[in-house]
């Protein structure tokens, strides 16, 4: 269950162009969070909290790793913080990736840009269950690439850049064939990427993690909805998601 918690910034480093990795300490969140959940981070001088995915957890050390890209004033403000400072977060928020404990299969992880982080904690968790992991990570250019090594440690890994400045050239969908056979997929990234993937992999079981501008982040304001395929209604990304079955939602 989500709580309002103070987390202490333990470390802070830039790991790619405009991309910061922050390790924060908090017992409650580190012990309870699941892959795919996020923190809803209060940023000084800003009305609304910022949703940031949990990228990794170290339960022994009570730490949570988050990665964020500086894209606007809120993330720019976060990028001025230093170890020793603390953050006010709600967390862990939302429902994470469903993991079938019985699964003995091959899983494809497909991440795009700043959608990559939640897949890392997912992959690590799956790998611990001896599931075979293949990952495809897409970035704009070489300068934005991060966590390649970490994913390589989980299994076969492909990096793609839009301009070919690193790894394969093109989009993640172009590389799916190379990845070979797999049973189901998990994906997170920009909407156009998710659209392309769910279209390309239609029929395959898959889960996708979505983004939308949020008000409350707890399910109360109806800001962050996504139309569902059957009922004609909406689901809330913050509380029903951010992870959905690929077939469930209309992108």
């Amino acid at each position: 269950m989500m709580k309002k918690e103070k987390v202490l910034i333990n470390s802070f480093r830039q790991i790619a162009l405009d991309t910061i990795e922050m390790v924060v300490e908090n017992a409650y969140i580190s012990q309870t969070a699941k892959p795919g959940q996020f923190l809803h981070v209060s940023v000084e001088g800003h009305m609304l909290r910022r949703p940031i995915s949990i990228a990794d957890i170290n339960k022994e050390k009570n730490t949570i790793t988050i990665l964020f890209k500086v894209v606007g004033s809120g993330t720019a403000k976060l990028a001025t913080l230093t170890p020793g400072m603390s953050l006010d977060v709600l967390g862990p928020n939302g429902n994470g990736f469903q993991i079938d404990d019985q699964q003995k299969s091959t899983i494809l992880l497909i991440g795009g840009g700043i959608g990559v982080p939640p897949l890392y904690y997912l992959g690590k968790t799956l790998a611990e269950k001896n599931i075979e992991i293949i990952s495809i990570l897409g970035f704009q250019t070489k300068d934005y690439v991060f966590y390649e090594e970490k994913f390589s440690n989980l299994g076969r890994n492909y990096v793609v850049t839009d301009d070919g400045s690193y790894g394969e050239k093109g989009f993640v969908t172009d590389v799916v064939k190379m990845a070979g056979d797999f049973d189901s997929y998990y994906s997170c990234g920009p909407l156009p990427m998710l659209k392309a993937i769910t279209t390309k992999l239609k029929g395959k079981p898959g889960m996708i993690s979505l983004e939308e501008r949020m008000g409350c982040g707890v399910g109360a304001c109806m800001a962050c909805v996504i139309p569902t395929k059957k009922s004609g209604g909406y689901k809330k990304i913050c509380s029903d998601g951010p992870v959905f079955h690929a077939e469930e939602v209309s992108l």
Partner: protein
Amino acid sequence: MNNLAVNLPGLELKNPIMPASGCFAFGREYSKFYDLSKLGAVMMKAATGTERFGNPTPRVAETASGMLNAIGLQNPGVEKIIENEVPFLANYDTSIIANIAGSTLEEYEKVANAFNQTDDVHALELNISCPNVKEGGIQFGTDPGMAAKVTEAVKKASRLPVYVKLSPNVTNVVEMAKAVEAAGADGLSMINTLTGMQIHLPSKKPLIANQTGGLSGPAIKPVAIRMIYEVKQHVSIPIIGMGGVSTAEDVLEFLLAGASAVAVGTANFNNPYVCPEIIEALPETLQKYGFDSVQDAIGKGIVQA
């Protein structure tokens, strides 16, 4: 000893603090953070005659000390709200205010009448000012005659006290207030959001899918205070004030301006505990500025010009 209690038509409030409509859904989410019995009342999300899916996304944008929203009245419809949501809230020792909306006079009547059939709702908040509904094209919230008409209709359709929620997007808010008072309103609720817009530079179009949205948060507090101050001097029905409240000091400012109770909207999003924290801080704040009770402070900031 401070006394936070306030009695308003239909509402025996143990304290003057309530979450504002649309910022608290039907209470379930925030009930995970604290006991809703701490609240003076809960203003439920707007109910319409039938289910509404609302607007496309993006539905919110951040602004300087505020936010824009164009949710578009997404709600499951009054019947389901009465069936599924009111009973949940009725478990708590707090007053329930149902916010009612519609595109037509008939829809308002239908919703008001439906709530009239239940025992657990204590008052209606008549939302004639939601800037995000375009259907029908009728501007209930900006035309005094239309506002009076819908107030009368709702009063007829229900035994419950009616608090009419006024829009700040008008030239003369006093005229609106007088019109609905004359039409039988038991109280006022003010203010709803100011209509605003943000243009997203990368996409070169309005960020909110609905184009315009309602501006809320501390940015609009001075407008809310001004309007309540003006209206209070011209009506004798009580006012539930709102617009940018996030501290006990803000609450006192609203009381001084003439509000008898205060709703907290946008501030819940940054701090889910904002309502109980304000309630806890209020006695000390009243005392600090020399007031014995909430009742004692109401309208005390009004100076005859």
